């Protein structure tokens, strides 16, 4: 029995397979999330629910069938997995802990110092992009995806780097008074440019990039090159769509807040 999804080179079947390592990790994350959010007020129940949705997304990304498909069969599944982990699950998890963060996240001591460094916008952006680029290099993918520890390392790095990347734009602790909304929007936009570049490379290549997917037992009518192009399209379109959607929402929320403040200042009636 495998404990984590990795490339096995065997023919794909739709027969369910257990991956206990995924379950253990999800249990750990769920327990940690519960401890961090327990006691949150009813007013924040939507945010707490968003966090649980993030946990479900993470589980879907890591466990059978998507985890297994992504590990050793389809580059397009690998792209979906990356988006689920880095662009959906990670920010949702942070939205969930946001209300209780001032109460539960350490603000002093070694932990706070480490958190401050890891979630500093520059450090977080560099960490996230270095991980994104490195984990898409052909040699790295072909070397790591064939072992359980290697595949686990890639998945864990995606989650960890994404949490660091999204943290300064979602969680109010550590306090960063100069990192206001417009800077955050620019940070989100620039922080995902490398991911877009990787997607473009996948889209325009005329030879398969990854040995693990090129030599995988075929399971669809698609060629390995077509599958890779689809992976690039998913990363490009869905990734850009998610990011632009978040940026747009953040911008209009900031603009609405400015307008409310202006109206209050000028003693104008609310719209």
């Amino acid at each position, binding site marked *: 029995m495998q404990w984590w999804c990795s490339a096995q080179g065997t023919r794909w079947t739709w027969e369910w397979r257990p991956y206990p390592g995924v379950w253990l990790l999800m249990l750990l994350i769920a327990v940690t999330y519960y401890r961090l959010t327990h006691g949150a007020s009813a007013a924040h129940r939507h945010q707490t629910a968003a966090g649980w949705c993030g946990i479900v997304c993470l589980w879907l990304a890591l466990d059978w069938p998507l985890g297994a498909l992504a590990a050793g069969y389809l580059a397009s599944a690998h792209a979906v997995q990356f988006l689920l982990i880095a662009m959906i699950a990670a920010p949702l998890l942070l939205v969930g802990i946001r209300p209780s963060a001032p109460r539960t996240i350490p603000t002093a001591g070694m932990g706070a110092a480490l958190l401050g460094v890891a979630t500093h916008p520059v450090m977080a952006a560099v960490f996230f992009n270095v991980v994104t680029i490195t984990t898409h290099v052909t040699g790295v993918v072909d070397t790591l995806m064939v072992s359980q520890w290697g595949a686990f390392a890639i998945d864990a790095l995606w989650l960890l780097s994404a949490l660091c990347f999204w943290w300064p734009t979602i969680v109010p602790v550590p306090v960063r008074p100069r990192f206001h909304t417009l800077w955050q929007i620019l940070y989100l936009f620039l922080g995902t440019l490398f991911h877009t570049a990787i997607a473009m490379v996948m889209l325009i290549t005329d030879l398969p990039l990854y040995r693990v997917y090129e030599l995988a*037992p075929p399971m669809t009518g698609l060629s*390995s090159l077509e599958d890779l192009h689809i992976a690039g399209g998913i990363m490009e379109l869905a990734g850009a769509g998610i990011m632009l959607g978040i940026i747009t929402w953040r911008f209009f929320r900031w603009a609405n807040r400015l307008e409310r403040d202006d109206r209050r200042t000028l003693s104008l009636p609310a719209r």
Partner: protein
Amino acid sequence: MRMSIPRLVVPDSNATPATRVRYLPVVGLLLLAACGTATEGGVRTLHGVALPHPIPRPSFVLRDTRGERYDFRARTAGQLTLFFFGYTHCPDVCPVHLANIEAGLERLPYTDRQRIRVVFVTTDPARDTPTVIRQWLDAFDPAFIGLSGTEAEVDTLQTRLGLGAAIRSPATAGGSYTVGHATQVFAFEADDSARVVYPFGTRQADWVHDLPLLLHRPLSR
């Protein structure tokens, strides 16, 4: 995964001293960008695995997908022929091999592609009727040639080429079974000898690199 067995060396007959000097900057940039193209002193190496000694093009007659006799040696003499054993129910090796070969062929000029033959011999004649083989090969390339014979004929042919005979697993309750078979593709060149084979794991980039070399390199007879 590249095999660590010594590579076959192909002399680069197009390069002259004057040409090398003129195009040095361009070549330098290309060398920086090239991945997987080993160039040592103007000599390019094939990505296939060199055989310890050349294997002559075998002489045998089997049935093609029209049910007609196919004399392999006579019909492919003097042509670059990619030859391998497999079966249509193969879950991994055979479809990947054929797909990658086809991808390599697609990148050749039409005239070069017409000079190459791909011949597939089934190791599962019980299930692989000529019609089944034809339908399966057509999914890759209608020009691929499929041959079938009796189990004894195919096993003998494999043995003559230094391969083990195919091994059929016991049938499951549903009647399906797998056939273990040699996975290398022999490249019989214009001089009717094979000096290099391509094991499973040969990628499209390897075929794109090697097919023009196999087609155009000078051969010593």
